[in-house]
């Protein structure tokens, strides 16, 4: 069945609600409105108000109450309407959800999924586009997933709901409806922590996640056409845990790497991956690893975002630099 990412996510949630009555959905406008992006469309009608419910406008309470529900034995899937508002629930996320297992020495787990849209390129108001995933590298105890297509989104969301620990599931707004893909009707899972080589190559490793995977692939295609370069494109799928083995294997093969993300440069995934490459395969490295990222300023207003989000041209130039003799 050909589905958009919104439809694939909706199917995934429906299947989880069907197979496991511990699963509950909560968030702002997810009920009759079906979510501002329609990801939860029809689910309240199908499963009732006690399984799928709207909440007051309180991000901290959405996460804080979910922690309580998760400890009780439910499997809450909470929606934060836009990732920029995760900051309002930061303490519940980072000091509570992410540490319940740790604090209780495993007496209590916190199986909780937090879904939230983010990402540039769609002219949203302030704080609707910001990429916040990098923050969570420094907050242990929470996994972070960022699907790049409908198929992955469905399988990764099922795996996130299965996971015994909290999972932050970040959905790139630009991918919601931008394309359809063949998505199996039945439930399937894609393991968290495993990257996906979406284009094989031998000359350079191009590492990305979320919407940037597509920009990266365009750049790879362009370079192949223009100069026959063989670019390997890796879709991380999950940034924590990070699939270091896949990164190292690729860079050991290619000797060159470019990392792409929309999030600011400082301390982002690009930094961590460069450090891993440095530690684990420095001697295979033929050129400095390049980072193509957002700038170290807040995500700008719609009128300026095209100059902030990495472009095919910026990625191609980075590829050219690492490929130059």
């Amino acid at each position, binding site marked *: 069945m050909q589905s958009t990412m919104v439809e694939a996510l909706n199917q995934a949630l429906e299947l989880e609600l069907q197979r496991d009555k511990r699963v509950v959905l909560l968030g702002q406008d997810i009920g009759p*409105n079906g979510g501002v992006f329609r990801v939860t469309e029809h689910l309240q009608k199908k499963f009732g108000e006690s399984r799928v419910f709207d909440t*007051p406008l309180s991000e*901290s309470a959405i996460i804080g109450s979910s922690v309580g529900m998760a400890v009780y034995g439910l499997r809450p899937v909470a929606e934060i309407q836009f990732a920029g508002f995760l900051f*309002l629930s930061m303490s519940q996320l980072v000091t509570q959800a992410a540490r319940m297992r740790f604090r209780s020495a495993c007496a209590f787990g916190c199986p909780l999924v937090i879904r939230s849209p983010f990402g540039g390129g769609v002219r949203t108001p302030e704080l609707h586009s910001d990429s916040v995933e990098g923050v969570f590298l420094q907050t242990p105890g929470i996994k972070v997933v960022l699907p790049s297509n409908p198929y992955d989104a469905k399988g990764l969301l099922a795996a996130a709901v299965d996971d015994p620990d909290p999972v932050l599931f970040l959905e790139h707004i630009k991918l919601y409806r931008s394309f359809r893909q063949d998505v199996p009707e039945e439930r399937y899972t894609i393991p968290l922590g495993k990257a996906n080589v979406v284009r094989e190559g031998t000359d350079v490793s191009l590492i990305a996640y979320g919407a940037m995977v597509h920009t990266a692939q365009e750049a790879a295609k362009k370079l192949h056409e223009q100069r026959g370069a063989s670019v390997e494109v890796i879709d991380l799928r999950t940034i924590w845990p990070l699939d270091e083995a896949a990164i190292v294997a690729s860079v050991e093969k290619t000797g060159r790497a470019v990392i792409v993300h929309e999030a600011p440069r400082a301390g982002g995934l690009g930094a961590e991956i460069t450090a891993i490459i440095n530690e684990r395969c420095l001697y295979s490295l033929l050129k400095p690893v390049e980072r193509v990222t957002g700038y*170290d*300023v807040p995500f700008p207003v719609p009128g*300026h975002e095209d*100059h902030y989000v990495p472009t095919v041209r*910026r990625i191609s130039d980075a590829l050219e630099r690492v490929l130059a003799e």
Partner: protein
Amino acid sequence: MITATQDAPFQVLDPEGQVVGPVPALSDDRLLALFRWMWQARTLSNKIIALQRQGRATTFGSLVGQEAAAVGLAAPLQPQDWLATSYRELASHLVKGVPLPTMLFSFRGSSRDHYPAETHCLPIQIVIGTQMLHAVGLAMAAKIAGDPVVVVGACGDGATSEGDFNEALNWAGVYKAPVVLVVQNNGWAISVPRHKQSAAQTLAARGAGFGVPSRLVDGNDILAMYSAMSDAVDRARAGEGPTLIEALTYRIGAHTTADDPTRYRDPAEVEAWKAKDPIARFKHYLVGRGLTDDARESAMITQLEDEINAAVEEAEAMPLPSPEKIFDWAYANPFPRIEEQRATLKHYLTE
């Protein structure tokens, strides 16, 4: 058990425009100014929606139906006073002196370059509830500085569920800050109705639990809004501390241009509220006082439309700030990393 005792909403004009309460002492000019602001708000709001449909404006939330509340919460303020609001209080910013072209410019999706700081309006707040703490902080600062300055913080009914709103109420009380916290209860937070936002009978009742006097006001009655706000602003200026005001009103339109209210809202409810239209109500009163009539009203509307169309042209003629400005806006003093990134951005501007 502790229970909150509750008056009916304060009203000066009933929905038919009949006087049912103490009419504030306002000159004819002032009354007409309020009327004009209300029409300006509605006309501008509809204009921006039209522009948005043509791809000439970004996402926008209409304030139709809330003109009395939005105008009334700002009208009693003086130039030195401050205003901190959400995106729904456009009209309040106009009353406070933000020029039409500047406001329209921001809806082109560019930043508020040449933002009119002298109007003492904080930039429109997107993070719900957040600005209420800024309002309290501004008021605390005014009190510390010993300035005769009052601050108004405004938000919606949904915002009252945020921790920040409640912390703001608590701090306003603790520091006896010269602030008026206004909740525009328009019945809905996108698709979530007021009764699902809180089990409290009224949001005004929130005040007592924080030691902040509060008042429930008919938000579609400009005269009630005006006098309730003047009382609260005067109290604050006199050092008597904060007030919480719940303005009962209704969001006639969609939440924003991205929203479809038919998914969650009964059209009958909308119709019922249209009957309480704040502009029609005030017009009836003004007509009674011989201050306006259909002819003069439509002349005023035409004039407002011309004014707004001129402002749109002016705004669309304004040059968009150069993209590299994002680096100037981020830090007062740039540092090497920022300058390198500025160079990169500029490099990619030159195509």
